[in-house]
């Protein structure tokens, strides 16, 4: 009935850009995606300070990146032969911006495709030290009543990491996903994930983020089926001149859907974070229940925290709320800890660890836990 006027995303044309000539092969799939890619311009991201694109050479991915078990688990390049994967790998998805999701679809040099039936356990790790340019296109389908645990790690110092992932959770499917990014010297890091949840599907996402120089992250969760449920925990620590722009969108499209987003950030030095928590409750989503929380701890007088939570509600039978807070370390807390014999540094470390601990404890991989703990102590 009413038109809401929204700002147009500003774009720019890059003098350096990928063209058909950069495609690794002549497959029709890639050519079609590259054509769509060429029709998009790059978005200008004001808060991230992104207004020029540096074209990096995309080479064949070097090394193993995938193991685990599931009914089908293979390299996305190979998966293009199967229609079910090909359709999903080529499916349009806005993500952070179509320019980047299409970059993945057309020019990917890595990625996995998986079909989980029964129980699946998938480990993915990309090494930016060996592969300074990672272009990922991945998909996973979790079949009715099946469940999967997935750990995805991207680490090292690279130049460009751009990922697009799509997850289909069929009826009653469960997915527990851990995304761990430790890539602080990487110039540009972009990660777009789409989750489609059917009736009764249950999704848990844990994002552990230790920067890149510029990071844009999007999680779009479509709660399409009745009683579907999504729970997101995100922790991040920015330092130096790192900038991170996180967007978590919960789209409630069916009745009795449930969503929880909780983001906790810590900022040191001149780090800058943007946390966007969107809750969109559509007309048919009777009795939807959604909540978004975001708390940021600023450790430095030069850090900056933006918080942009939005609630869009079309149905009157729902419960929706959001809360944001930005603050410094509670002096009482600090004083208490110091009165117990800790020096200031150790006390701050303890407080920061307390924020990360609930997420670290969920990680089912001891080595990765240690890696995160190390990354954390390096930063404090």
């Amino acid at each position: 009935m009413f038109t809401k006027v929204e700002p147009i995303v500003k774009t720019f044309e890059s003098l350096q850009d990928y063209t058909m000539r950069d495609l690794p092969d002549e497959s029709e799939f890639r050519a079609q995606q590259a054509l769509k890619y060429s029709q998009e311009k790059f978005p200008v991201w004001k808060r991230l300070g992104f207004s020029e694109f540096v074209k990096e050479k995309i080479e064949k991915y070097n090394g193993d990146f995938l193991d685990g078990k599931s009914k089908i688990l293979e390299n996305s390049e190979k998966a293009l032969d199967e229609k079910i994967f090909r359709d999903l790998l080529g499916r349009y998805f806005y993500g952070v911006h179509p320019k980047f999701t299409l970059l993945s679809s057309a020019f990917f040099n890595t990625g996995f495709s998986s079909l989980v039936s029964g129980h699946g356990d998938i480990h993915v790790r990309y090494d930016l030290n060996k592969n300074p340019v990672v272009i990922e296109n991945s998909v996973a389908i979790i079949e009715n009543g099946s469940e999967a645990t997935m750990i995805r790690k991207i680490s090292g110092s690279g130049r460009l990491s751009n990922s697009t992932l799509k997850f289909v959770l069929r009826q009653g499917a469960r997915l527990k996903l851990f995304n761990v990014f430790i890539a602080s010297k990487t110039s540009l890091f972009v990660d777009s994930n789409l989750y489609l949840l059917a009736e009764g599907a249950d999704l848990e996402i844990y994002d552990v983020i230790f920067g890149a120089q510029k990071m844009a992250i999007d999680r779009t969760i479509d709660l399409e089926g009745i009683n579907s449920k999504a729970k997101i925990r995100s922790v991040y620590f920015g330092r130096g001149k790192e900038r991170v722009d996180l967007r978590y969108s919960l789209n409630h499209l069916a009745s009795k859907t449930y969503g929880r987003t909780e983001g906790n950030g810590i900022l040191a030095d001149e780090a800058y974070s943007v946390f966007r928590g969107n809750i969109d409750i559509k007309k048919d989503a009777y009795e939807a229940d959604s909540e978004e929380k975001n708390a940021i701890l600023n450790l430095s007088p030069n850090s900056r925290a933006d918080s942009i939570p939005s609630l869009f509600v079309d149905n009157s039978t729902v419960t929706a709320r959001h809360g944001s807070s930005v603050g410094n370390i509670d002096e009482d807390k600090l004083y208490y800890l110091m009165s117990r014999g800790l020096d200031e540094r150790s006390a701050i470390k303890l407080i920061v660890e307390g924020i990360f601990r609930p997420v670290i404890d969920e990680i089912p991989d001891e080595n990765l836990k240690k890696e995160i703990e190390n990354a954390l102590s390096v930063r404090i």
Partner: protein
Amino acid sequence: MIEKEHVILKDINLKRTEPGLSRKVIEEISYAKSEPDWMRELRLKSLEYFIQRPNPTFGVDISKLDLDIIVNYVRPNSKRQNSWEDVPEDIRENFEKLGIPEAERKALAGVGAQYDSEIVYHNMKDYLSKLGVIFVDMDTAVKEYPDLVKKYFMHLIPPNDHKFAALHGAVWSGGTFIYVPENISVPMPIQSYYLMGSPGMGQFEHTLIIVDKGAHFEFIEGCSGQNYSVSNLHAGAVEIYVNEGATVKFSTIENWAKNTYNLNTKRASVDKDGTILWISGTMGSAKTMLYPSSILKGKGARTEYTTIAYAGPGQHLDTGTKVFHFAPYTSSKVDSRSISFGGGYSFYRGLLKVSQSAIHSRSSVECSALMVDDISKSDTLPIIEVMNNESEIGHEAYIGKISEDQIYYLMSRGLTEDDAKALIVRGFLDPFIKQLPFEYAVEFNRMINMNFNSKIG
């Protein structure tokens, strides 16, 4: 004033400019007001900005608002009067029809009334002028206090700020000028009424309030109009300068007719230890975009908002608050509530900026929305930007329904469902209603009852 759905105003004798905006129209307005050159130039410069600036890229859809057919200046054929009895009877009758009661006028320190583009009535208690308080209509101020006006007029809201600020700068007419000297407390509020009586017109009153060090002042504005089948436009501007240690309470009860586009700009700058209190009720208009801003530029400056938006059938109200913390120890508190019912759409848009130098600042923003039925819509979009590590910022928003338990409970106590709903809506809006002058509160309750078919109250 509030409950005026069926009021038909009397036709009165008016002079108007040709529709649309041109150099000629502006010269004509300026000439009619026998303005000094600097003001005419400000208008013409604003026209240039207006032509250059694009429409806002957010908020309500204004594509159907045709600025080429809006009449920008309508002058009632009446001189400014200081006695209500001297106001021509037809205009007076139109104000009375909107329920501006005599009794209430008596409880005020001063009253101004604007019909279409000009102030037709103006009065202030004598003792206030003896204290040095200036309360005149804006056109008079341009002539009698040119230094003050030049120093402050459209400095907080520069004409190139946005398209409708530019339009305002070009065609502004009427409005109120107030100056309160140092350490003077004005004991009762001053009130201005704005009324749009002509179809297809635009009203662009300018309110300029300067409150000097340590002074206290309260202002109330009420806006109303008759409903026509063509669109009316309101693009007023309010500029408030709160000096060191001063306090200003600014209340608005906006109830424009349902054919009105209300694209209004309000801004206050607050010096050291000063306070601005905004009380704002948006009930009328077809479409509104309004975000009163507080610029806290002195140490310890403070702002508080109590606002409501009440969006009924056919209304899209895009309202919010903007707070800029630019100095240490500044604080802000926002309580913003909205109701949408009968297909109405309310949108809360907030901006909170805490600069690097605004250490030890505190802010708490709460917005809540109550959706009464299934055909209405409610959105919330606050933006929070914090640039230091020594401030405490909290924000919470909640959108929810009227709980069935509450209704069930009230019905078990003998209320009808409609009565129960009206009671809950009133309770939800209570923090705002409490701030209203008594007559307005009564009217407001009556309006809720009317909208929800309730007979209690």
